[in-house]
């Protein structure tokens, strides 16, 4: 039985899931370049580019 609390939690997660994962990958991106070079730098660039790509995608589409 879906209680009001479960519906509440699901609804909250629906709103925050994408922002949450973007924040997690951004944080990973900020840290990886700090601990090494080469591949770690590359991972950092990809992670930090995600907010930019997501922004561009939704700003451009009509």
């Amino acid at each position, binding site marked *: 039985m879906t209680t*009001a*609390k*479960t*519906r*509440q*939690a*699901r*609804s*909250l997660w629906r*709103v*925050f899931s*994408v*922002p949450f994962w*973007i*924040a*997690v990958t*951004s*944080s990973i991106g*900020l840290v990886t*370049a*700090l*601990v*090494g*070079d080469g591949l770690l*730098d590359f991972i*950092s*660039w990809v992670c*930090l*580019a*995600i*907010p*930019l790509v*997501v*922004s561009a*995608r*939704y*700003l451009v589409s*009509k």
Partner: protein
Amino acid sequence: MTARTVRIWYKIHRWTSIVSTLFLLMLCITGLPLVFHHEIQHYLHPELEAPEMAPGMPPAPVAAVEAAARALHPTEVVQFLSWDEDDPNLMFVGMAPSHDAPLDATHFVAVDARTAAVLAEPNFNEGVMYVIRTLHVDMFAGIVGKLFLGVMGLLMIAAIVSGVVLYAPFMRRLDFGTIRHERGRRTKWLDMHNLLGIVTVAWLTVVGVTGVINTWVDPIIKIWQFGQLADMLKPYEGKPAPAAPVSVDVAYTAAKAAALPGNIPAFITYPGSMFSGQHHFGVFLRGETHLTTKLLTPALVDAETGRLSDMRRMPWYVDALFVSQPLHFGDYGGLPMKILWVLLDLISIVVLVTGLYLFLTRRKTAERQLGLAADGERALSFGAAE
């Protein structure tokens, strides 16, 4: 979340934003060229580069570098000498009329570490970049300016937290990324503000927090001076400065011998400097990885005997300050990271500008729709309507 709760968070978000937005805009805008500060300096001061020479040339004795600088200013004192972080062949000698001279009396002589030839005498306190950097760091208001900007940073963090909380009721019925173009400019800009704000939360929070920590540099250094440094100098309390101090090479050798593997000297302060006291050379060692390159270990060498008297890792709060620097500047991941840093900064500017617009054009109707009307409470609990 009741309407009353939303209203409280809304007020927090609005007021912390109002007070700080203009200063944050200044910080974001001055921050844009500062991301490329290093490259711009190289472009503006081409003479500040150690010339190309045969690779693997051994460095000249440090005393020779000191002598080259002294020859230009024979009546002045040497406060410190340092190695450029990116090019160990480039050294700087910091000189001043006396050890008690005010901080802005210190000037630099750039010397080639291999030949001990003087390269230039740069003045870092002039030019466009000086103005931009000083505006960003303290708005030309010294420690008061720094601390004030630190408070603005703390307000920004409160605005970010309250913004994230408010994201929920605003996005309750909208898919992620929705931008409602058909409801007029205000709604469109609100949706843009929410989208751009929420995707940059992590980056902006890190840059904001590290920025705040950097505004505390003066008190942090003072605490270190009166804490760890005073402790290391205790055995020498009251002893006069040595009449014939040993050569800096002796201090350099003693420190390198005691240094942990992987540590290289970052800078050396001379007896009389406030960073090592009257009686000692301070050989400040650092690591070579991205992280440890900022973490300093001062090695105090007795200037009379040339022997190491104490060597300790700097305390956690100094480490926090130094680790905050790369995370704030974005200079630890090569050129692509700097470009990403600038783009994220531009997005932050859009968040601030759209926020300002939303505040200036706020209307009672919009707030009522959010259930914030003073008349009657409407439950905004999640899932209730589903």
